């Protein structure tokens, strides 16, 4: 409290603003989350463990987190390439492409889900040639992966874009003039300055993919243990009126997500201190 008092600004309104902020965040974020923990605390530790370690729950969590991580990695690589093209080059249609990157963001998730499942179904435009090659996408874990990649596209691009715009091309030119080849310029000059933004983008894409429900359930098979995502399992438990089960799984997801975000955050701080260009 003392620190706040010392740094208090001369501008009026601190009390009111702080009060409104705390109230708003509490109502929207903290109280619902606390409710989640409260409902779960109705279970004994044994019951909680039984629910969380059941085969179906573990498989659902594995599918959700595992595929979300893979999808986020793919988005990291592809997103970086996309943002590079959008920022560094000028070509006709660049603005249109830039706008298209936002489509997965703007599209209602159910619409995205239906579109993807129609596209990748066995008779769909992309599904048919893939099926001919022996690859079934819709209603399999691959379909889940595709949906997660789709909705994660804007996160890496939009997080890295401002940083890349700020990055002066002069620095690259300086590196080249000092004798660095293209590979060295990329790995020693450009990428290091992007690492914090890349990690943030990765974390955001991952977080979004883990929680994604609407776009995924249409294209997932929803078969327990095979292609069932954790949010769907939570909904099924709710529909069976097993509220405590549902909140138990939700709590596990919440804690895991927090841990991962925390780790990424630490990585970012480390990157900022250790890597050059900062």
């Amino acid at each position: 409290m003392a620190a706040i008092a010392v740094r208090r600004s001369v501008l009026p309104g601190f009390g009111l603003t702080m009060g409104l902020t705390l109230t708003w965040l509490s109502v929207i974020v903290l109280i619902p989350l606390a409710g989640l923990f409260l409902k779960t605390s109705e279970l004994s530790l044994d019951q909680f463990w039984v629910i969380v370690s059941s085969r179906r729950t573990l498989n659902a969590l594995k599918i959700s987190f595992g595929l979300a991580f893979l999808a986020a990695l793919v988005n990291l690589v592809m997103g970086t390439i996309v943002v590079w093209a959008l920022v560094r080059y000028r070509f006709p249609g660049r603005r249109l492409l830039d706008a298209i990157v936002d489509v997965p963001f703007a599209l209602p998730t159910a619409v995205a889900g239906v579109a993807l499942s129609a596209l990748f179904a066995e008779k769909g435009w992309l599904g048919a040639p893939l099926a001919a090659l022996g690859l079934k996408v819709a209603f399999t874990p691959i379909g889940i992966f595709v949906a997660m990649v789709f909705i994660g596209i804007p996160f890496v691009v939009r997080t890295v874009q401002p940083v890349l715009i700020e990055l002066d091309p002069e620095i690259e030119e300086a590196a080249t003039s000092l004798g660095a080849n293209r590979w060295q310029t990329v790995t020693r000059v450009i990428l290091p300055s992007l690492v914090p933004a890349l990690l943030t983008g990765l974390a955001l894409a991952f977080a979004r993919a883990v929680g994604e429900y609407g776009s995924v359930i249409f294209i997932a098979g929803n078969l327990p243990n095979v292609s069932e995502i954790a949010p769907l399992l939570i909904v099924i438990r709710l529909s069976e009126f097993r509220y405590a089960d549902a909140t138990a799984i939700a709590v596990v997801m919440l804690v895991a997500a927090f841990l991962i975000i925390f780790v990424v955050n630490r990585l970012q701080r480390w990157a900022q201190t250790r890597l050059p260009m900062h």
Partner: protein
Amino acid sequence: MRRLLLAFAAVVWAGSASAADLTLLNVSYDPTRELYADFNKAFASAYQKETGKSVEIKQSHGGSGAQARSVIDGLQADVVTLALAYDIDAIAARGLITPDWQKRMPLNAAPYTSTIVFLVRKGNPKGIKDWDDLIKPGVAVITPNPKTSGGARWNYLAAWGYAQKKFGSADRAKKFVADLYQNVPVLDTGARGSTVTFVERGVGDVLIAWENEAFLALREFGKEKFEIVSPSLSILAEPPVAVVDKVVEKKGTRAVAEAYLNYWYSKEGQEIAARNSYRPRDPEIAREYENSFAKVELFTIDDVFGGWTQAQKEHFAEGGIFDQIYKN
């Protein structure tokens, strides 16, 4: 500026008034979307002709058990048209419907009946002829979750009834049903959900479905893709209807709600049921549509299980036989 705002507010207020004189909410079970689309249109025009008032009927669909719980939790349904009497009894037990609701309308308040049949892929590649084929290894069976769906519970009881008659003991019946559920890869929350899984997602070899759902699948997706197999023995399902007293008293819609349900017992209502592959009760219309329905030997829930309350307690309650055999 003020006048503009006032005018705008007036327009919004006037526009938000309902277009119809009366509105009803019908909370129904999963497969009846098309049935009530037909029925509501016919009723609305008949009611308009008779009383001059226009009525708008809003629909809600979902697994019968889940719908019943929504009504108990406060969903303001004027009428409930669910898959089985127990779900309406559960609502009555909470005081929302009078306990003698089933006697207020003819034929146990069930204006049509149905039964449970199998839907298989065209050509019947797995050779499904009867219930025994469903427990064979390598056969994937699609049926919904008895915890939420009414159709699912009829399916379960039909299977149990068959096994009990064939093998003679409840233990053998339990083993049979347990084996059956071993072959089920996914339990959807409602009958329509299972139909979607079987038909659109291509999961499973056989769908245990309401007879009306099976016929609907043939109509919508083509007879070239699926065929109906009638089991040798199935259960007579009597989906009942009821007015939710507490709600109609509050909203003042009792007269129109009762007229709505009574329309089921008119010739037009029965015709609509038959057209949508629900077995009509009216003997004349039943005779007319005789050939549109499968010829199946039917038993009732009272015959084998002693009624819904008994069946629900024994099989579907928390810790009941279904919970014992299906651990997932």
